[in-house]
């Protein structure tokens, strides 16, 4: 089955290193609540072109690690005719469906589909719930990262 990205001739992850760094910075920012000062400070460590991207990213879209942390739905828990409302395809048409559920409203989507949407919006496509309005769970990878960043502290 072709993916959203294939059908639309776009590529998802370019400059993945930069994205990693960006999302690390972003989650650090989130952990510290609304302290914009931290973000400003950190952003001075990176080139100007990236600063813009970073600050822009805090306005729209969810951080990559939020998207990566969405709970997956097992194939056996999917109903026969259940379909993704973004691509309109039945989940079970795919031998290995990769379906996720948004934590608060429980709406389900193909990971590939919802990942594209959440990279530019923070709302559930079905109920418009602001997915980031609930305190995000921070995944374990943050722990290592904090050590790394400690050297600037």
């Amino acid at each position: 089955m072709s993916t959203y990205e294939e059908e639309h001739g776009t590529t998802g992850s370019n400059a993945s290193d930069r994205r990693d760094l960006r999302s690390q910075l972003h989650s650090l920012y989130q952990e510290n609540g609304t302290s914009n000062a931290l973000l400003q400070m950190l952003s001075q460590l990176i080139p100007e072109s990236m600063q813009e991207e970073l600050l822009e990213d805090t306005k729209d879209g969810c951080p990559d690690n939020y998207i990566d942390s969405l709970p997956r739905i097992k194939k056996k828990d999917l109903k026969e005719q259940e379909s993704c409302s973004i691509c309109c395809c039945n989940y079970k048409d795919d031998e290995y469906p990769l379906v996720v559920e948004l934590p608060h409203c429980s709406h389900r989507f193909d990971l590939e589909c919802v990942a594209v949407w959440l990279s530019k919006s923070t709302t559930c496509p079905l109920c418009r719930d602001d997915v980031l309005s609930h305190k995000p769970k921070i995944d374990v990878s943050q722990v290592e990262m904090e050590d790394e960043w400690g050297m600037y502290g």
Partner: protein
Amino acid sequence: MASLPKRIIKETERLVLDPVPGINAVPHEDNLRYFQVTIEGPQQSPYEDGVFELELFLPDDYPMEAPKVRFLTKIYHPNIDRLGRICLDVLKANWSPALQIRTVLLSVQALLASPNPNDPLANDVAEDWLKHEDEAIAKAREWTKQYASRK
């Protein structure tokens, strides 16, 4: 041309096989992302008995990006400007990829049923609407007769 995403094929099939009452949407043969649309004016609205022609285009990024929709028939409405552009939240900031061509067209039909002069696109029309509602509605009726009569 790149192949058409499955979703667009499915939506098109459903529009043809299970059409929405009062709404007709058919893709152009040479561009399957480009639809010729007609919407009947809702009953009890100034647009009643009118048939309005529109055009709709699904951009490359659809459904991550909203369809582009425009009236081709002249219409007197505070949220539709002289070039047929429509001020409708679901076509802009409130777009969601779970919406479809059919839901968008239903929203346009609903906009005809309840004009919103407080969020205008056509400022002169909205002003009329707020100051002299009766006259504005009469004018909308008149334009419907003049430009949107069933052929």
